[in-house]
């Protein structure tokens, strides 16, 4: 395992993220070069734009108003979901945990389905999905409280139960909605996740949430390490176990709920990226969280670029199709050792 070079790994991944982002901005029906993208982007940044002259016209509009916000939202979603997944896997001490384990996806999905069914305005839909996602998590938390403590095993089962309940209701709405009104298609698209409707205002909302959320998860990263020794031992090593669980679970659920509200349910990123990151820097969360965050950003914009090249198919399809073979590879590699 590469450990001592974490600084270099993070620097390398940051550069890779930038290159992937710029590359992604060149891909699409309009032919825009690498150089043009860089100039247009730099021209958008205050102070620097004094020294840069960017090409005017449609290229600029396409890059600034369509491609860049989409890439930015992709990075934010990739980071949020990966960090959320890392945190969930840490708290559940289980590598199969995902950001959606507490019912965020099923809850958000139900809200979105209701919204589509009643034709709620485009602006309110994320709000609706966010509130149902958060309410579901809240219910799961209420069910998972045992004697004033959050019991992880009960929480897992409560999450499972709420996932089933919400998915069942969503399926009912899907089944009942008339095919000609496109509601079924809209719900399906939400369930698979996509970045099609990305806009700067979404970036403005999700970016601060991501920064605060990732910061909180990172702040409790050593506590997350010690909790791997067992909750009892963690307490005896001076960790406030209940507060750590609360901060990690609430923060990572909110991160996931925010992304679900704006991009739908992009699966697999939050489940798989933490594994990939763990293979590179090990399970120590101070190294793992930034590594997983950057890898998540890179992975999601790569997948979204492919999705654009394939004619705007939902990005969730690509993440699953690319992610599962990797997962199977991990499974074969680590067969017999369930802890990875």
């Amino acid at each position, binding site marked *: *395992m590469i450990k001592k070079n974490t600084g270099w790994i993070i620097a390398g991944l940051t550069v890779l993220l930038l290159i992937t982002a710029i590359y992604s901005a060149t891909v699409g029906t309009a032919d825009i070069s690498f150089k043009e993208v860089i100039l247009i982007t730099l021209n958008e940044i205050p102070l620097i734009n004094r020294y840069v002259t960017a090409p005017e016209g449609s290229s600029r509009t396409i890059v600034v108003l369509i491609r860049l916000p989409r890439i930015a939202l992709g990075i934010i979603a990739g980071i949020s979901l990966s960090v959320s997944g890392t945190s969930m896997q840490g708290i559940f001490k289980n590598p199969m945990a995902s950001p959606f384990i507490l019912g965020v996806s099923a809850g958000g999905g139900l809200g979105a389905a209701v919204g589509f069914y009643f034709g709620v305005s485009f602006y309110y839909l994320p709000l609706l999905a966010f509130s149902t996602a958060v309410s579901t998590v809240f219910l799961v938390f209420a069910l998972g409280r045992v004697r004033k403590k959050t019991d992880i095993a009960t929480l897992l089962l409560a999450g499972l139960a709420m996932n089933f309940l919400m998915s069942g209701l969503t399926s009912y709405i899907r089944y009942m909605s008339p095919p000609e009104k496109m509601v079924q298609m809209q719900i399906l698209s939400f369930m698979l996740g996509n970045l099609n409707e990305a806009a700067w205002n979404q970036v403005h909302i999700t970016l601060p949430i991501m920064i605060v959320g990732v910061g909180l998860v990172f702040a409790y990263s050593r506590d997350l390490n010690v909790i791997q020794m067992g909750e009892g031992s963690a307490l005896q090593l001076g960790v406030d176990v209940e507060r750590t669980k609360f901060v990690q679970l609430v923060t990572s659920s909110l991160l996931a709920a925010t992304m679900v509200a704006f991009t739908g349910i992009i699966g697999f990123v939050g489940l798989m990226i933490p594994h990939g990151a763990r293979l590179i820097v090990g399970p120590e969360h101070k190294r793992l969280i930034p590594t997983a965050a950057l890898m998540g950003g890179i992975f999601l914009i790569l997948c979204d670029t492919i999705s654009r090249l394939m004619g705007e198919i939902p990005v969730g399809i690509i993440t699953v199709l690319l992610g599962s073979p990797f997962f199977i590879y991990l499974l074969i590699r680590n067969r017999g050792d369930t802890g990875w």
Partner: protein
Amino acid sequence: MVGYLEVKELTTGYGEKEVLKNISFDLKSGEMLGIIGPNGSGKSTLIKAITGIIPIWSGEVNYDKKNINELHRRERARIIGVVPQDTFINFPFTSWEVVMMGRNPYLGRFENPKQKDDLAVKEAMKATKTLRFKDRSVRELSGGELQRVVVARALAQEPELIFLDEATSHLDIGHKLETMDLMKDRVKQRNIGVLSIHHNLNLAARYCDNIVLLDEGKVHAKGSPKKVLTRAHLRAVYGIEAEVDENPRDGSLYVTPIKRKVMTEDKEEVVHVICGGGTGGTLLKELVEHGYEVTTGVLNVMDSDQKMAEFLDLKCATEAPFSSISEQAKNENLILTEEADLVVGTDFAVGPGNIDNLKALLYAAGSGKDVLLLERNEFRERNHMGRKGKEIYDRLVSKTTVKTMASMDDLLRYLSRGNI
């Protein structure tokens, strides 16, 4: 360090269920204290309560006169380090990283380990001989190796008290002793206190200065190993018959369990057994296990029946080795005979030394007591008193209250039918 842990009237449990009641003991620095007791007696619960994993219902735990409940958990973690029985780690942390977690109570939220922490970790890993696999994943270690890493973690914590929660039970005998020796050294060199839960009584006897014996959530006995590890305590708490001997080399005690006491209900009836020369030993044990209160006599000291009686802690009229029955022993025996509900005479050899035992049987039968004779050997084969012996024997068997039994099983069966 002048640490002093004081547990006062501690009561706790899980949910509604009370597990420990009014537990009190002290642990001083420089002391190794053992906690023993059967499964479910509340040993591990005690550690959980003191370290704040479960709340204390009543009573208090003080360290250096400060209530341990009022200490911040980080402060408490700098005082008490715990080695649990098992540790399961799902992710491939390296051994070094796991030991470094012992430094958690010293590191601020955004603080990185410093040289001081590295040194503490390194020293702890050296002491536990784990340094050579410091870069290996703990998931690749054997159970014993991982446990030593966890011991190192507790050492790196540099606590003033170390609690071992059956920490050595999964280690092989070599590493068990090594770990306990290491603890003993720490106690001496750094004047820390060690509290260790033991299932292995000999390990407790060997290493602990003092022992607390728990039974069903209460302190059954506490004090030096000599005071606590007695046959009576072991019988009462573990339900075993055991021999407790002193190791001739270092004076420590060692316990050899002989057999589990059969848990029959204690009966009220008293059976007096007149035996000797090995004819009654097994019967004494069987009767005790069937729940009778058993007395015996007159037996010469060092006779094998007498040894059994002593082992079973029976009331016994004794005589000096290889001596004839004295007047005093004879009377003692007759008193026991009178106090008994039933008298059993075994097929002991009758000679001039113990003719009084045969007379005692006759006396019992004469006074209307039920007498059972165990006759596996005919009387004439074991009579070394000639006509005098035969005369007494004949008078004995002619009594209506006397019955003869051909085997011990017959005898026990006869008793169990309520013929007493």
